[in-house]
């Protein structure tokens, strides 16, 4: 999307990235350089060249008593060198109609100026018209990167807090239980419970591998509830400090032959369900590979209960982890 267009349609809005959002959230004074090098009009171009060189800059605002009177860029410097008039004054070569930004402007306004005018830097003025900083595209890039870094740290903090849940809350035995109610034939939401399980485990600090294994086991159990039950069922995930227990239960019709159901490739799925990619007969054996323990009980009266347990290995602490 283009920064020039102020009118954003819904379609555009869906495409707006976090960086673009930040361009609207941040203000100019949050990213501008405040270590300001300024020139005065009566300096010679030779003096200005020396100031540019010492400060490693390629342009600076020209100021009299805090008021902006012009801007001098490296291009102006080159012109004076070309003319052999390096001993003339800054006032003779500076640009007088300066394009500026306001310190309270959103960053997006400054970005529009850069796109529209092709200038390299914008002096930043406060509400009294005093020069308070200078903004380059480089400042904007650094500002956006810093803001993204802050976002990232905030997410890390949420994850850190979540992962310390078990240490922060004192009880003799703390567990966290997630319940997902899975409807019969609800293929539209199929996979939502397992994806949310996986996401929750990642938030709680589970390794990608553990989260993936639980996600796969939960997925197969969830799809079984959708496909093979009378009235759907419940996926229950219990998280403890040392293990994760997944349980899928329903109220029927039950599995007539559990041994047969456990065989890889055996499936009772209908032709319609198979056309959607289910019924490979691999569900239970997939689960078995992903968890440490699996128990399946079933009867026509009480329905089916599938218990799956995954033990969390105590992480090895490296020396720098010690507080």
């Amino acid at each position, binding site marked *: 999307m283009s920064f020039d267009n102020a009118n954003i349609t819904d379609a555009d809005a869906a*495409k707006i990235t976090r960086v673009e959002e930040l361009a609207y959230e941040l203000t100019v004074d949050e990213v501008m350089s405040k270590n300001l090098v300024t020139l005065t009009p009566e300096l010679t171009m030779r003096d200005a060249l020396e100031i540019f060189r010492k400060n490693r800059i390629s342009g600076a605002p020209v100021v009299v008593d805090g008021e902006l009177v012009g801007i001098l860029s490296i291009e102006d410097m080159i012109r004076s060198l070309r003319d052999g008039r390096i001993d003339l004054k800054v006032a003779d070569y500076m640009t007088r109609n300066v394009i500026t930004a306001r310190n309270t402007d959103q960053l997006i306004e400054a970005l529009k100026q850069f796109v529209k005018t092709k200038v390299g830097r914008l002096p930043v003025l406060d509400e009294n018209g005093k020069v308070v900083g200078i903004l380059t595209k480089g400042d904007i890039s650094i500002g956006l990167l810093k803001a993204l870094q802050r976002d990232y740290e905030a997410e890390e903090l949420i994850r850190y807090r979540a992962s310390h849940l078990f240490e922060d809350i004192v009880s003799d035995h703390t567990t966290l239980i997630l319940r997902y109610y899975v409807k019969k034939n609800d293929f*539209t939401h*199929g*996979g939502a419970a397992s994806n949310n399980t*996986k996401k929750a485990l990642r938030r709680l600090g589970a390794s990608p591998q553990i989260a993936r294994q639980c996600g*796969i086991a939960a997925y197969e159990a969830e799809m079984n509830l959708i496909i093979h039950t009378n009235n759907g069922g419940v996926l229950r995930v219990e998280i403890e400090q040392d293990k994760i227990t997944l349980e899928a239960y329903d109220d029927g019709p039950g599995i007539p032959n559990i041994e047969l159901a456990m065989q890889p490739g055996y499936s009772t799925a209908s032709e319609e369900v198979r056309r959607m990619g289910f019924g*490979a007969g*691999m569900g239970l054996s997939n689960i078995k*590979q992903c968890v440490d323990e699996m128990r399946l009980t079933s009867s026509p009266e009480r329905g089916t209960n599938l218990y799956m347990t995954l033990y969390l290995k105590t992480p090895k602490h490296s020396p720098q982890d010690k507080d």
Partner: protein
Amino acid sequence: MILQDAVQRLQLKVLTNSSDFNHVHIYQGYVSDMLSCVVAGAPNGCVWVTLLAHSNIIAVATLLEIPAIIITEGAQPDETTVARANEKEIALLSTPLPSFEVVGQLWQMGIRANERLSDLL
């Protein structure tokens, strides 16, 4: 492989919103039309070749963090499936070619069954 190269070489039709795949790097691929096999066998971050077009493919791709699905033999996902793919930022790419042809071409472009990024670095 950069996904954009595959889109161009195989002339894949992009069904989802995203149009620039120059930054999507893929090293591994998986092909199957049985969801349980995909769940068990497809590596994270792979390209998945299938003729399934039902919305369940999005749930599986989300679970396995699969960034792109190539739907073969002209199978057409419905609007809900495409909308959900957009929501999950999964690219849906369509082709009239059979899966075998697609996989052959991807192999020639360097995609393998089980190659990890860390092996390549």
